[in-house]
């Protein structure tokens, strides 16, 4: 399995940073590459474990997620919802212009 895993390099960092929506300064990239490769090298020891007949475990609880009825349980709290917004106007969150 290990050979399927490529090492993290500058293009990989750029791609992952883009997917993560993280601005990473150029000067920080070398250290980040070193750290990520160390961590990925460490976790690669899982390759030793035979898991061919093992189901993945996503939750330890074992119970099914409960369903609730689809009904309105609160509302009319516009002020509270917008309370922490960095920018708001007329009851809306404001973001930089997204259409030309």
């Amino acid at each position, binding site marked *: 399995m290990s050979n399927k895993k490529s090492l993290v390099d500058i293009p990989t960092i750029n791609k992952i940073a883009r997917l*993560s929506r993280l601005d990473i300064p150029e000067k920080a990239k070398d250290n980040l590459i070193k750290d990520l490769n*160390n961590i990925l090298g460490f976790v690669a*020891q899982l390759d030793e*474990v035979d898991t061919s007949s*093992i*189901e993945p475990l996503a939750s330890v609880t074992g119970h099914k997620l409960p369903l609730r009825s689809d009904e309105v349980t609160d509302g009319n*709290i516009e002020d509270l919802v917008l309370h922490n*917004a960095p920018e708001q106007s007329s009851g809306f969150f404001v973001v930089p*212009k997204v259409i030309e």
Partner: protein
Amino acid sequence: MSDLLKYDLLQASKAIKKKDFSSVELTNAYIKAIEDTSPLGTYLEIVKDKALNMAANSDKNISNGVSKPLEGLPIGIKDMFCTKGTKTTASSKILDNFYPTYESTVTQNLWDDGAVMLGKLSCDEFAMGSSNETAAKGNVINPWLKDKKVSPGGSSGGSAASVAARSSLAATGTDTGGSIRQPAAFCGITGLKPTYGRCSRWGIVAFSSSLDQAGPLTRTVGDAALMLNSMAGYDKKDSTSANVEMPNLMDYLDKGVKGKKIGIPKEYTQNGTSEDIVKFYDTSISWLKDAGAEIMPISLPHTKYALPVYYIIAPAEASSNLARYDGVRFGVRKEGASLDEMYELTRGNGFGDEVKRRIMIGTYVLSSGYYDAYYLKAQKVRRLIKQDFEDVFEKVDFILTPATPTTAFPLGQKQDPLTMYLNDIFTVPASLAGLPAISIPVGLDKSGLPIGMQLIAKPFDEAGLISTSQVLEKSADFKIIADGAAK
């Protein structure tokens, strides 16, 4: 020293009800202690007026004879819990202006039971760290050997240091891979991580949702029982909350350990555990044996894979959970020319290095082409780790291990991330299996720093954990107070 600081949570609860002193007097003593110990940096926010109002209200309840389990007892809250109207930052720059408009279920449960809030306690940023050094406002100093400036552990470093420094009577913490138990061990106090699902996660800043669990940090096992009684409970607002009845933990004090089987896993004395810790591990085994427990050697063969599994699953879940910090609905925004640039600058500027590292790792292991090799593989090995515990719990009632491989280390060592991750080697396996576990202080190492032992129990057996750890607590008779504690 204010005499009032000598009372632990249980003692103070009795004394307040007998009107030996008032909640306002006790709260004032703690506010003074917070001021006196402020160089330790445990509190991010102190809510003096709110605390005194809550205390006055408790005193009124007590004189009206309607006091509740935690009536009038001043506690500290880890900054991962949303507290209505009180700044909640998760020790991150990105939440430096965040004032929740709602209260987390766990803290609401505590206030409903009469507790008094002193303030918000520092932690590693978004609970990611084992030394409290990733906190945006700087590290906390461990009150033990305070002039040597050692780490209080993390991520609940402010909570543990504050309880040890007597600037709170008890504190809340959250534990994802050891964040209650490791700092409790480093600070010479008791830290209990309940079964996954015992305490509601609603209103707690999310780090890794399949692992995060809230719990108490206290001076004694009895105090942990009293706190957890109030914190725990089914909550329909958390879909993973366990609808399992919790016995009154106070009924399980002084029950002893006669006839119980304690497993000693051979895998937990490897990996360069410090000599002093190994010595106290052996002593702890003898104490339990002397108290009538049966000691059994066991094996948890997949233990060595717990850390690699954790450092795939936790960052993966974190990368998803932390996607919400986008500078749109709350938090600190950094302007950019486009929406995407605003996101990238907001997040690049708002998150610290360790958080960014984990988001990057998490995004990588979830990205197309790597998902199966890393994330799915980790989930499979996680099942094997859980299976190890299930097999062993067919034969034993509890598992005893050291809480940490070393005692508290000096601050500012600039360890590489992997070395730091190894701190959680003994606490992560129980987290991955969702099991309840407790760390309690048993002694000091040669340099005078506390040593913690960990007991792990079957799912939902917090009651057994309380009875058994209390036996260790009595045998260890650990009564030393940190030199940096409030005088």
